[in-house]
């Protein structure tokens, strides 16, 4: 029949290349987090060193990979990712989480002020300490930041599961990204809520980061509380089916 085929042809030409076609999902569940890029799009390679390697030194796989990339479509690099040597994905993620109302300038300045505050406090401690202690004092704000967030990550988490009309908090292993997210979320929430009125965010954040680095302080306590709850609800572990 001519009419239906014409309709289908029009439908095909109307679709732009790479736009994700409506994928059939389970009824009642809508996809909320999705990207406009189709699955054929590759992530951009931002690393400068990758491009600086002279062509003679590449192995067979790498040459093949480069030839392949010439034919593939690549997503646009986000404005926040730079090829700067000083870039740190953890710091960028933390800055984005601190951001309110899209004010990235403010969030970034708060982050840099926090790192500066951490550095200055550690330098003060360093100068006041004796020679043996000086070797143990860490002055790099980036290592302190990473270690503090690592110390705040919970190992096991709780998930509300509906069974027999009631929600039960069931202990569940967490994925790496969920743990990192929880650590950052708790840190930011702690600094926003429990701050003295006239204290500024960088000062409070630097305080909390240093305490978490030494495995003490309210964020670590919250992680331990989460672990204790999980331990207490151990019996409900059977409710988990995955």
């Amino acid at each position, binding site marked *: 029949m001519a009419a239906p085929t014409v309709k289908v042809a029009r439908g095909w030409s109307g679709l732009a290349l790479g736009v994700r076609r409506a994928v059939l999902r389970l009824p009642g569940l809508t996809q909320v987090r999705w990207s406009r890029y189709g699955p054929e799009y590759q992530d951009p390679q931002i690393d400068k060193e990758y491009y600086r390697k002279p062509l003679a030194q590449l192995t067979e796989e790498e040459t093949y990979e480069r030839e392949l990339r010439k034919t593939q479509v690549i997503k646009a690099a986000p404005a926040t990712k730079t090829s*700067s*040597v*000083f870039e740190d994905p953890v710091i960028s993620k933390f800055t984005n989480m601190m951001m309110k109302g899209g004010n990235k300038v403010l969030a970034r300045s708060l982050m*840099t*002020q926090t*790192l*500066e505050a951490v*550095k*200055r406090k550690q*330098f*003060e401690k360093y*100068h006041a300490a004796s*020679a043996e202690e*000086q070797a143990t004092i860490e*002055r*790099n*704000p*980036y290592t302190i930041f990473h270690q503090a967030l690592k110390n705040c990550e919970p190992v096991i988490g709780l998930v509300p599961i509906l069974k027999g009309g009631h929600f039960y908090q069931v202990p569940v292993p967490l994925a790496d990204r969920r743990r990192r997210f929880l650590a950052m979320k708790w840190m930011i929430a702690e600094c926003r809520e429990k701050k003295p009125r006239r204290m500024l965010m960088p000062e409070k954040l630097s305080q909390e980061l240093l305490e978490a680095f030494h495995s003490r302080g309210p964020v670590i306590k919250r992680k331990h509380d989460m672990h204790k709850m999980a331990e207490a609800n151990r019996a409900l572990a059977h409710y988990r089916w995955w």
Partner: protein
Amino acid sequence: LDPGRFLHLGTQAPQCLVAHLNNQVPNESPRAISRTLENDPAKHGEQHVGRHYSISVQELKTVFPHGLPPRFAMQVKTFNEACLMVRKPALELLHYLKNTNFAHPAVRYVLSSALDGEKGTGKTLSLCHVIHFCAKQDWLILHIPDAHLWVKNCRDLLQSTYNKQRFDQPLEASIWLKNFKTANERFLSQIKVQDTYVWNKRESTEKGSPLAEVVEQGIMRVRNATDAVGIVLKELKRQSSQGIFRLLVAVDGVNALWGRTTLKREDKSLIAPEELALIYNLRKMVKNDWQGGAIVLTVSQTGSLFKPRKAYLPQELLGKEGFDTLDPFIPILVSNYNPKEFEGCIQYYLENNWLQHEKAHTEEGKKELLFLSNRNPGLLERLCAYL
């Protein structure tokens, strides 16, 4: 002898070891040397450009009682040492000051940003270098750290006791007098006042009494502090021509004297700068009708009121009135670091372990810092603070 090997020792050790290096290998070191042991500004020359020299903590208290610019003060506190870089504009100024003829009227030098007029090029710290030199040479230093602070955010304005049209600023005046006393203790007893000043029914300062009494009176009775400042300025101007002492007038942000103020009277009408007694007396000080010293000034847009952000030329910032009063002056342009100074600055930060990021030690990191800061001293300092 690798300079890098000495990085792990304490902050006291590098001084003597750098002396060792300086004597043995002056030209052949692979990395730039960032320090010099020549701590006397009088002996600084072309060969010291790009190197840092240190000021001891006691000298800091006597030479800069008003305080240093806030970021530099933080750096001094963190590193436990005050190191200034020797740069060409300051050397030029020092050369002129060394060759001043004290019989001629005081010459005015104005430090301003070169070329595109960026902020953070180092005008205030060059001024501090010059002040340190003059203090070492035993001049009397009249330092106003920031004239903009006198025309804005003043809580208590009193009607002046001396002249009903003008206004007093007791807080600012008394703070300035306290710091002036700390800086110039030894001169205050030598200089004698040449007029009798009556403060109120019970107190007066007789002719021939030392200037210290006027300063004390200003600090004790805060209401008379502004008048005390006026008297100090008048006496110093009169007596510097006689040759007992040499006077350096150093004002940072001199464009505040001829701009506008944000201070209001009780009936909410704006006050012009000449109606403030402190500003009125300071304007008289900055005129070149006295001998026996020099006037070093800075024009800056940061902190100025009602001036566009891009304004950097003395003509724009001072306005017609100010420019006519200050004309003729010697302009000294302060620009960004040249490559040697930039290397010296980075080396200084590396020696103090201030650059903690692993990548900052590499060539890539340095190139990136150069690109991000465009060799601007202020920007570089802020960048290195969080790296």
